[in-house]
């Protein structure tokens, strides 16, 4: 009976701690994806954007298993910033940890500063920068490229 009691108590403590605390993370890249598997080219389950708040469920190497709008999947650790906050703190407008991250991120050198800088120096070749930012190797092309070159698929 003692064993049963210990197991029950341990289970309860674990349950309580998992209910009381949730790990929330904020997406810190312009766009990203939640994948079915913890791999770079795994099937995409959901698209996320900068500032989206997602819930971390567990860690799998360089990947987090996460939940976002009832979709569960994996996102790379470098695409998010992890914060551990209590459930009540998540809903607490006074503390607003996630909110704080977002507002902080929109400050400093931001689009408003860039616009003013561009107005000051209209000769700057931002048109070329925008063009360069549109250079995107598609996932399908990358996979074919890696395989054809006998390279290693990143994990």
């Amino acid at each position: 009976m003692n064993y049963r009691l210990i197991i029950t108590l341990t289970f309860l403590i674990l349950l309580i701690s998992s209910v009381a605390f949730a790990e929330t993370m904020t997406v810190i890249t312009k766009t990203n994806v939640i994948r079915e598997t913890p791999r770079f080219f795994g099937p995409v389950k959901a698209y996320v954007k900068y500032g989206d708040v997602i819930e971390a469920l567990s860690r799998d190497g360089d990947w987090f298993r996460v939940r976002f709008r009832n979709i569960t999947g994996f996102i790379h650790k470098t695409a998010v910033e992890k914060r551990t906050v209590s459930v009540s703190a998540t809903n607490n407008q006074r503390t607003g940890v996630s909110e704080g991250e977002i507002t902080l991120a929109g400050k400093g050198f931001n689009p408003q500063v860039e616009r003013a800088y561009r107005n000051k120096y209209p000769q700057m070749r931002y048109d070329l920068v925008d063009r360069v930012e549109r250079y995107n190797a598609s996932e399908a092309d990358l996979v074919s490229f890696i395989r054809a070159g006998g390279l290693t698929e990143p994990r």
Partner: protein
Amino acid sequence: MRSKIFSIIILILFLASCKTMDMDKAIDMTFTVIQETSKASRPISDEEEYFVGRAVAARLFQSYPLLENSRLTNYVNLIGNTVALNSEKPFTYGGYHFAILDTNEINAFACPGGIIMITRGMINLANNEDELAAILAHEIAHINNRDGIESIKQARWTEALTVIGTKAAKQYGSEDLVKLVNIFEGSIDDVLKTLVVNGYSRTQEYAADEKALIYLAKAGYNPEALLNVLNKLKAQERISNTGFLKTHPDNEDRITNIKNKIPEVNTDLKAFQNRTARFNSYLRR
């Protein structure tokens, strides 16, 4: 016995809820302090780094024309992204993008945030895809190490933080905006001075070389390709001392630094030949 267990459960739940309340308070307080402290002396964020990088790139395009060759550009982006995915930071705020500058000068620039520029002259220096990957890996390492951003003077960033303040507002009034744009401009100058005139420190260059070796090995490229590139740059030193050769440490020293650090990899000769064949096809050699 049942009622005893039930009582214990109730007690644990009660204690846990008490603990949670205390923990909440503690966490709230801790985060408030962390937030205030980090806002007062925080480093440049990834998003800010992205805007600095865009401005640096815009400035560089005033001196160097962009090569209009979508096929070759796509190829360089495929190599670069393959290497970047094997770096410790496969995702930056705006992603990695690789541009070719239409000049014979031998040079490459890592703009903070993820835009990497490589000159036609530098591409021509490479003899195969692995060597081109080695050049890009070195630049990706500079971005991962935030070497460009590090060149912004601390005093300038401290001044920026006083203007940015701790308020939540994202839109600045005209006075603050003028101040912030001037600081932004100064920051761009700092980065460009490092990229074009002074170069990174010897330590930063060595670190970028060492990381490049790891990225190459992880991606499946032969890391010895970096050694080949450095030998070619060393040979170029005798001919000229401009661009990359001017801003980087003596290539002999860089060779010495990495010689015993090259990871051992299984070389698949057939795969290497396939890569070289496609390199020659893209370069029309």
